[in-house]
């Protein structure tokens, strides 16, 4: 089991710089998710790791080897593509054994390993069929099986679940995690689905416009986003973002004045971020934790089973809140409601740089 390292990786296609200096260390045995909006360079990063694209500058290390100049076949990685890329002219068994055969593994061992992988994935009865005779979900399993059989240094996944329907996607997520636990294989997984990233990753690498925005555990990414981009991208429904500015000893916003000191000069434009989960009823929040009390007008309520999304308005500011079922009864469309913000759940960002600003709350009166 090996880790991997990318050192100041740059990639340009023609005059367009797609990767602008990626530095990343992947721990052996970890499950790392590359997350980011479409076109930010996730696939390009993965493809450079696999050797399918050549970096413009920078180094790629896998284990203790500098593989920067090596061909894909010399890197000993396995990859699962979004469209599965099964060889249409080969049976499933031959698809799965192809990598071993290309590496001159004895036939008997190929058979044992293919059989074992097929058993793990529950696709034994498909081995004699051809890819076109399989459903999307089955093809997906075969693609994963083909990667497992190889026992490679690194598993690379490029949005492997995005062609599946929602239910199957959630099932396969669990299955992939189970496999990861059983095989303890170093995995790098690309997705633009933040829910997938949150549930699967040991570590999330949030990318934006060819740069790494933040690296951290899922909870760090969620609770302490380092930038406006991460804050806005992660979380569903999206974080409420409210414009404001710093005044002496306080943060002024459209929804009220926060008695807190941000480490930015007075007059600096900021954005206040509040997750929809972080709107509370005053009676469920300790008084010392209450940073601000808001009187809101309830615009409408969307039910999502055990939870509901409530759209609220404070002055001209619209806020979305997520509440559990037991609280939903307290809302009525068209009525007023009083809510509070917790001082531990506020995010303040510099509006011009997008960087997170540290917030020191005034001692409670």
């Amino acid at each position, binding site marked *: 089991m090996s880790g991997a390292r990318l050192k100041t990786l740059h990639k340009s296609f023609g005059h367009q710089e797609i990767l602008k200096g990626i530095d990343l260390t992947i721990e052996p045995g970890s499950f790392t998710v590359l997350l980011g909006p479409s076109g930010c360079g996730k696939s390009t990063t993965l493809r450079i790791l*696999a*050797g*399918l694209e050549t970096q413009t500058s920078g180094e790629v290390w896998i284990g203790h080897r500098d593989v920067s100049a090596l*061909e*894909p*076949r010399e*890197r000993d*990685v*396995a*990859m699962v*593509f979004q*469209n599965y*890329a099964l*060889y*249409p*002219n080969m049976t499933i068994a031959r698809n799965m054994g*192809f*990598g071993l055969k*290309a*590496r001159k593994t004895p036939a008997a061992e190929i058979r044992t390993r293919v059989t074992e992988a097929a058993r793990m994935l529950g696709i034994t009865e498909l081995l004699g069929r051809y890819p*076109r005779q399989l459903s999307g979900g089955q093809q997906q399993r075969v693609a994963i099986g*083909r990667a497992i059989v*190889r026992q490679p240094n690194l598993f690379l996944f490029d949005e492997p679940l995005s062609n599946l329907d929602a239910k199957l996607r959630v099932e396969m997520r669990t299955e992939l995690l189970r496999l990861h636990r059983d095989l303890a294989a170093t995995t790098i997984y690309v997705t633009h689905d933040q829910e997938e990233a949150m549930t699967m990753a040991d570590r999330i690498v949030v990318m934006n416009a060819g740069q790494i925005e933040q690296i951290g555990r899922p909870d760090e990414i969620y609770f302490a986003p380092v930038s406006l981009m991460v804050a806005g991208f992660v979380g569903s429904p999206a974080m409420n973002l409210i414009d404001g500015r710093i005044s002496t000893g306080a943060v002024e916003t459209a929804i009220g004045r926060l008695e807190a000191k941000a480490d930015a000069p007075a007059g600096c434009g900021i954005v206040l971020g509040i997750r929809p989960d972080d709107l509370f009823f005053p009676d469920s929040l300790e008084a010392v934790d209450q940073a601000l009390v808001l009187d809101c007008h309830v615009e409408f309520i969307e039910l999502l089973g055990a939870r509901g999304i409530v759209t609220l308005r404070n002055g001209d500011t619209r806020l979305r809140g997520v509440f559990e079922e037991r609280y939903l009864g307290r809302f009525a469309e068209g009525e007023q409601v009083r809510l509070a913000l917790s001082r531990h759940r506020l995010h303040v960002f510099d509006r011009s740089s997008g960087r997170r600003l540290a917030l020191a709350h005034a001692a409670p009166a």
Partner: protein
Amino acid sequence: MTGRPLRYRASQFAVELTVAVAIAIVLFPFVFILATSLKPPHQVAEPGVWWFEASFANWAAVLLHSDVPANILNSLIVSLATVAIALLVGCPAAYSFSRFKAGGPARFTILSASMMPPVILILPLFLVFYHLGLLDTLAGVVVAHLTLVMPVVTWFLIGFFDDVPRELEEQAMIDGCTQFQAFVRVILPTVRPGLAGAGVFGFVLSWNDLFYALILTGGESRTLPVAIAGFWTFRGIDMGKMAVAILLAVVPVLIVSFFIQKHLIRGLGGGAIKS
């Protein structure tokens, strides 16, 4: 009784009738030629005669006492060699055009040689072959046919390679293949229908060519179309023997097309249908 089944049967009948007429129109020349080939010598020149005593005199004359079998062999050698070379060169070429965007916009120009009227090419070819001693050789005809067949085969295959997802060969390369191995072991089998279609297409082009063969070959190396034309002499047209030779020329094309008609149809669609 409702009217619906009746109307249905009526339209069914109309469809069948149309198809029957179409088949009759297509088959008529064949039937006519077959009849001509079986007519006794004194009736051959009377196209209006449909009732006659079948005679195999023409067939025997052509098959046993003429050069036609040798011409057929020549034609086979020329067509097969042409197709083999065209595929061998055209296939990697088409792959490069498709995958590496080789030539860029110039890729349209590969067809120029086959778009040109053969008259333009024949004079230079004739002169070059004269100096190389390739006149009246099968090799010369093959080269001439390649100017026509190779671009068509290449063009034909580009569409098929375009349809192969790039990930397929990338997967093969990650799985341990060199780019060349990925091409041979994964990409080529995937475009097999295209290869078959291009092969037949090229074969027919070469097999049916009269123009190049007529000018470049004379004696020993005459191909079948040249031989067929040869029945038209200054002493008149030997219709009976000509008919036999024509049938011999058409039959292989029909047989080959029949066996790969499925692939041929997909091929003519330019590989538009993905598997």
